[in-house]
């Protein structure tokens, strides 16, 4: 495995750089200065970082008000607290009022593994995906994270950035350019498509390599923007590869796999397998353990893809 990176560092340095060039950028957090890697931002821009305390409803409401007052607020907090407690503020003050607020959920998915279900954030994509006006981005590596932060800053309107704290390898070339709403093909194949986002992208790539050894050519697409989703890339995958396996660090209900399935079912129906957390609260254990536990591994993705391809072949 190549060197692993904590994408929060790319998030923080991109945010600092954007703030240097745009005095409207402010950051709000809920006592999460260190967990969101904001210590350096706080040193460089002490007057532009607001630790609102342990009060998420007020934090998100305030962000909406600051946007009304001409600021570009980035709200950075653990995803479990950022999205659940103030969900009504996200719906009304941010999305419905359509304010220029950037919600940055850190330590997403199963990243807080042993801390348990209160700290896992495996419902956030489903909740926010159901809200109109909301753009959702799940970057996969440091380069994509940095570009996603910049894209969110340039975009006028609500954005949810879902940022893991798990170490991830680089999956994009240095020349990669992230665009909101565009999926990217990381590997071509004709037998099946592995569609992934965030931490599952390198695992999908590893699964594709394993499948190749078994004679299965898998396409891998990184769908970093969950909403609006790249319908064209998904339809193309369905048409050209005949089956799609999705993988996400999230419940399988209403998340990334659901978003892909909505497109597939209504355009070019093909068999799918949706990998994620299967509708349970995750037990305790390290993130790596939980990924194994739920089959969110290269082997797990390979097995699902092989089973899909074989069941198609037997028909």
């Amino acid at each position, binding site marked *: 495995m190549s060197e692993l990176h904590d994408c929060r560092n790319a998030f923080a340095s991109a945010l600092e750089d954007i703030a240097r060039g745009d005095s409207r950028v*402010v950051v709000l957090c809920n006592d999460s200065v260190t967990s969101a890697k904001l210590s350096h931002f706080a040193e460089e821009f002490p*007057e*532009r970082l*607001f630790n*609102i*305390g342990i*009060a998420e*409803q*007020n*934090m*998100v*409401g*305030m*962000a*909406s*008000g*600051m*946007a*009304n*007052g*001409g*600021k570009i*607020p980035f709200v950075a907090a653990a995803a479990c607290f950022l999205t659940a407690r103030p969900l*009504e*503020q996200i719906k*009304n*003050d941010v999305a*419905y*009022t*359509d304010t220029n607020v950037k919600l940055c959920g850190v330590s997403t998915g199963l990243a807080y593994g042993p801390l348990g279900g209160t700290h896992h954030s495996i419902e956030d994509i489903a909740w926010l995906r159901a809200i109109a006006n909301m753009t959702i981005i799940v970057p996969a590596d440091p380069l994509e994270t940095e570009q996603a932060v910049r894209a969110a800053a340039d975009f006028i309107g609500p954005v949810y950035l879902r940022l893991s704290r798990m170490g991830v390898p680089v999956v994009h070339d240095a020349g990669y350019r992230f665009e909101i709403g565009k999926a990217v093909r990381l590997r071509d194949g004709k037998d099946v498509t592995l569609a992934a986002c965030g931490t599952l992208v390198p695992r999908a790539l590893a699964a594709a390599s394993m499948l190749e050894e078994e004679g299965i050519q898998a396409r891998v697409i990184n769908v970093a923007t969950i909403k609006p989703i790249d319908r064209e890339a998904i339809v193309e995958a369905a048409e050209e590869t005949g089956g799609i396996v999705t993988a996400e660090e999230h419940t399988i209900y209403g998340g990334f796999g659901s978003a892909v399935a909505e497109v597939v079912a209504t355009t070019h129906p093909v068999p799918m397998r949706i990998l994620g957390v299967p509708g349970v609260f995750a037990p305790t254990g390290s993130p790596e353990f939980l990924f194994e536990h739920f089959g969110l591994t290269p082997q797990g993705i390979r097995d699902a893809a092989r089973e899909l391809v074989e069941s198609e072949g037997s028909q």
Partner: protein
Amino acid sequence: MPIDSQALHKKAYEIRQRNLIMIYEAGGGHTGGDLSSADILAALYLNGVLNVDPKNPRAPDRDRFFMSKGHGSGLLYTTLAFAGFFPEEELATFMKPLSRLNGHPHVDVPGVEANTGALGHGLPMAVGAALAAKMDGASWRTFVLTGDGELQEGSNWEAAMAAAQYQLDNLTLIVDRNRLQMVDRTERIIGLEPLADKWHAFGWSVREINGHDHAEIVQTLSGVPFEIGKPNCVIAYTHKGEGVSFIKDRAGWHHRVPTEEELGAALEELRGAAQ
């Protein structure tokens, strides 16, 4: 432009009449709470308390007003129309299909700052706006009107702490203290008293006024900040349904729509009181 309190009183009662007609025509709205806040909104918009320009409703240096009690949309729209933000005729579309005059305020309506209606949202947003103005050293101010039952929402108290922490003396909260929420008296459900003491303890500068006395409302709201470095809280003692004898202080009129007969009787009372 400031007008004298007698003229303001007359305007507030004209607003009440138009507001009630609108509710009757729409077959929906929040009768009691609209009548409760009418004098406060008249003072804000028709007496020059708020520095806003109906011709340029999104001017960056405007004063902000957040209608946190969003169920008072009928009153807000009527007042905005009287203040010239949009033509009064548009009030006839209130709650009609595809009208921008939604049952709760929407930013598509000129003069509306946020889509309120879920309670406990206005104060946090107002705190954020006031903080943005402080950061910029801007002179515009932020006002927010909440109901009293609404203060049962915990988000208000999160915001109360933040406003004091950031010393937002450019922020003014007005509490429409009519002592009634939808089904009963606040004190019989989850009591708010001692309310002034609560705000004081949270670090705010508090004034208690008669929310139907135009001279007192204007004088108080024109006197902010009350203390340098402290957010301002004005507890306006009001009566839900003020101006109509058979609606006043009755919880049953929270969102009851008057019948044709009741409308006629109410308008007669309001016309009399407007003189």
